[in-house]
């Protein structure tokens, strides 16, 4: 165990940066510089945390100097440091894309008093959610993150955006209040909200009560992660936001839900055997999501449904609930954060070149924008899991875990393969409809059938560069698959053993 102040920085730096961008509200360049340098610093801190956590065990920071079960702790173990690193890298790329899109749309000198501060606050919320070792702080982290996302999704509102914003805000509030209920019930039952402390105390509760609490946790985080019966809000709200915002939400927000589920399921409610409920949910999520995607004509909605479908893959690893399954989920989350954000960024570029999100009205874009065809093809094939890509590595880890888990998990592993093939069909169909065929003229921006307002035909090099950088990250994940899966395997072992986390937070008394 290492005690240090490092885990505080990923939360503190973006918050201070947000304040600084408000102060620098008149200078667009100062805001951009602050945003990019803060996120780069957080990425550096996350790298150090990952190395430390991997070498010496979880890095713990006691906020305010209060020791663990009483005070709030921030814990960076292998899983949270890894997710923090990849999330910050993706956030940074999205920020570069967003800054450049704003330059293209509103001019070089337009500063914003909301965009930059809110973007950094969102990043602080995501960091806190990954790092906190306290159930109530997790609630606060979700609220910081969601409040920032409400603002981002309803900025520059028109009638469509306000509709999707309302759906999103209402459903998120409902799930937040359910989360608060869970915290209240957990505290009433155990007298603590510290995650490491809960690990011991929940085990002493009656089985019925444990089941109730575990189910509440699944529903609460299930809404945030968009697991299938609870997913309806996602394809309705995400596609209407501007491309960088959608990319950020799709990459990070649902995955934070998955992380919360992963942390609470392994630490507080470990089952020790495959969970039938989660297996069924995973299978239904994968199939419903991908079939929903096949029915869509709107590019962004199609990608949103694919996002829902791939949440099912992560739930599958969690459902297997042995070390291999958890490690598979961790690897899948890392891969999926990158690839889903990339797809939405590239979709933003496509939309700008064609003036529409409707697949029926696109065609022949490969002749006008060959680079875009490649930029879309690589993450699309990665998402489907075609062999040399990171998607293949992550899916292989999940399938191996599923094959070792018994007959029930083997059946769902078959569904994983089926859903991957259907994903491949969906993305190849999109690619053919967008990039092949007769070239079409870009539609004017005030197209009445189109629900989005985009700056048609105005793209710039940094937007391509940011998307290309994320494609490079996902290729790098595939290249570094060996060391990376070694880390996630160790993370999976840690999570299933539970001892490293508890000892790090509570001292030697935390060992069972």
């Amino acid at each position, binding site marked *: 165990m290492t005690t240090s102040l490092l885990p505080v920085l990923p939360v503190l730096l973006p918050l201070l940066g947000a304040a600084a961008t408000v102060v620098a509200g008149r200078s667009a360049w100062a805001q951009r510089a602050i945003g990019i340098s803060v996120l780069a610093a957080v990425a550096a801190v996350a790298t150090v945390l990952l190395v430390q956590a991997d070498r010496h065990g979880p890095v713990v920071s006691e906020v305010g100097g209060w020791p663990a079960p009483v005070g709030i702790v921030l814990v960076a173990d292998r899983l949270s440091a890894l997710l923090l690193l990849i999330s910050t890298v993706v956030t940074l790329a999205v920020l570069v894309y967003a800054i450049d899109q704003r330059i293209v749309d509103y001019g070089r000198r337009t500063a914003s008093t909301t965009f930059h501060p809110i973007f950094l606050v969102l990043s602080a919320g995501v960091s806190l959610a990954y790092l906190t070792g306290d159930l*109530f702080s997790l*609630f*606060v982290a979700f*609220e910081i993150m969601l*409040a920032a996302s*409400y603002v981002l999704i*309803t900025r520059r*509102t*028109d*009638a*469509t955006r*306000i*509709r*999707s*914003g*309302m*759906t999103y*805000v*209402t459903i998120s*509030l*409902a799930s*937040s*209040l359910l989360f*608060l*209920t869970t*915290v*209240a*019930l957990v*505290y*009433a*039952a*155990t*007298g603590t*909200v510290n995650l490491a402390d809960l690990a011991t105390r929940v085990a002493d*509760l009656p089985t019925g009560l444990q089941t109730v609490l575990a189910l509440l946790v699944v529903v609460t985080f299930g809404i945030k992660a968009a697991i299938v019966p609870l997913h309806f809000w996602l394809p*309705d709200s995400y*596609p209407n936001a501007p491309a960088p915002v959608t990319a950020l939400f799709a990459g990070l927000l649902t995955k934070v839900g998955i992380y919360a589920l992963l942390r609470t399921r392994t630490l507080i409610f470990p089952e020790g055997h495959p969970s039938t409920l989660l297996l069924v949910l995973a299978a239904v999520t994968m199939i419903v999501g991908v079939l929903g995607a096949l*029915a*869509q*004509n*709107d590019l962004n*909605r199609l990608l949103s449904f694919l996002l829902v479908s791939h949440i099912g893959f992560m739930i599958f690893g969690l459902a297997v609930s042995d070390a291999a399954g958890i490690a598979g989920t961790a690897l899948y989350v890392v891969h999926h954060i990158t690839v889903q954000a990339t797809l939405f960024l590239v979709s933003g570029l496509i939309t700008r070149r064609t003036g529409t999100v*409707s697949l*029926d009205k696109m065609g022949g874009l490969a002749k006008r924008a060959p680079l875009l065809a490649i930029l879309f093809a690589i993450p699309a094939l990665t998402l489907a899991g075609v062999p040399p890509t990171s998607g293949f590595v992550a899916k292989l880890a999940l399938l191996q875990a599923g094959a070792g888990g018994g007959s029930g998990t083997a059946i769902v592993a078959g569904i994983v393969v089926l859903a991957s093939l259907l994903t491949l069909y969906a993305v190849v169909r999109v690619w053919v409809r967008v990039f092949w065929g007769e070239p079409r003229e870009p539609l004017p921006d005030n197209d009445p*059938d189109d*629900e989005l307002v985009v700056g048609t035909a105005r793209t710039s090099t940094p937007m391509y560069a940011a998307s290309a950088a994320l494609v490079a990250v996902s290729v790098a994940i595939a290249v570094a698959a060996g060391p990376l899966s070694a880390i996630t395997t160790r993370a999976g072992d840690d999570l299933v053993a539970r001892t490293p986390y508890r000892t790090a937070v509570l001292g030697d008394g935390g060992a069972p």
Partner: protein
Amino acid sequence: MTTISLAMAVVVAVLYSVGFYLLLQRSLMRVLLGVVVLGHGANLLLQLAGGPPARPPILDGTGDTAGLADPLPQALALTAVVITFAMTTYLLALGYRSWVLVGHDEVQDDLEDRRIARRRTVKASMGEEVEETGDEVGVDPGSAAASDDPVTSTADVR
């Protein structure tokens, strides 16, 4: 483990049912009231986790903790109250913006979703030959689409 009195359990249950009922309404004002009521329910539950009502959360100097309430849930509830308050304000602003932009504060159906559903029904009833013109069918009968579209209908009334 803390147990709570029946009266308090009933109050919490009523607040939750009223809150969720209002949350399921179309009008954003009712949703807002639902969030407020539900927030009260959740905060009351959080308070009750600290012990029976009417006990002070302060030590009296004797070091005797027998008649005390647990102060932590009260601190948590305080945080949660502030968050709920902020969200309520935000929803109010959103409702106002919706009223300015579309003339009412009702949450609308997803148009693209309806378009896809309608395209399927038309295809099924007209057979295979319209398959390629599916998108036109969805968009073209604009009058039929607009009449059940609450945006335009309420705008007319206004």
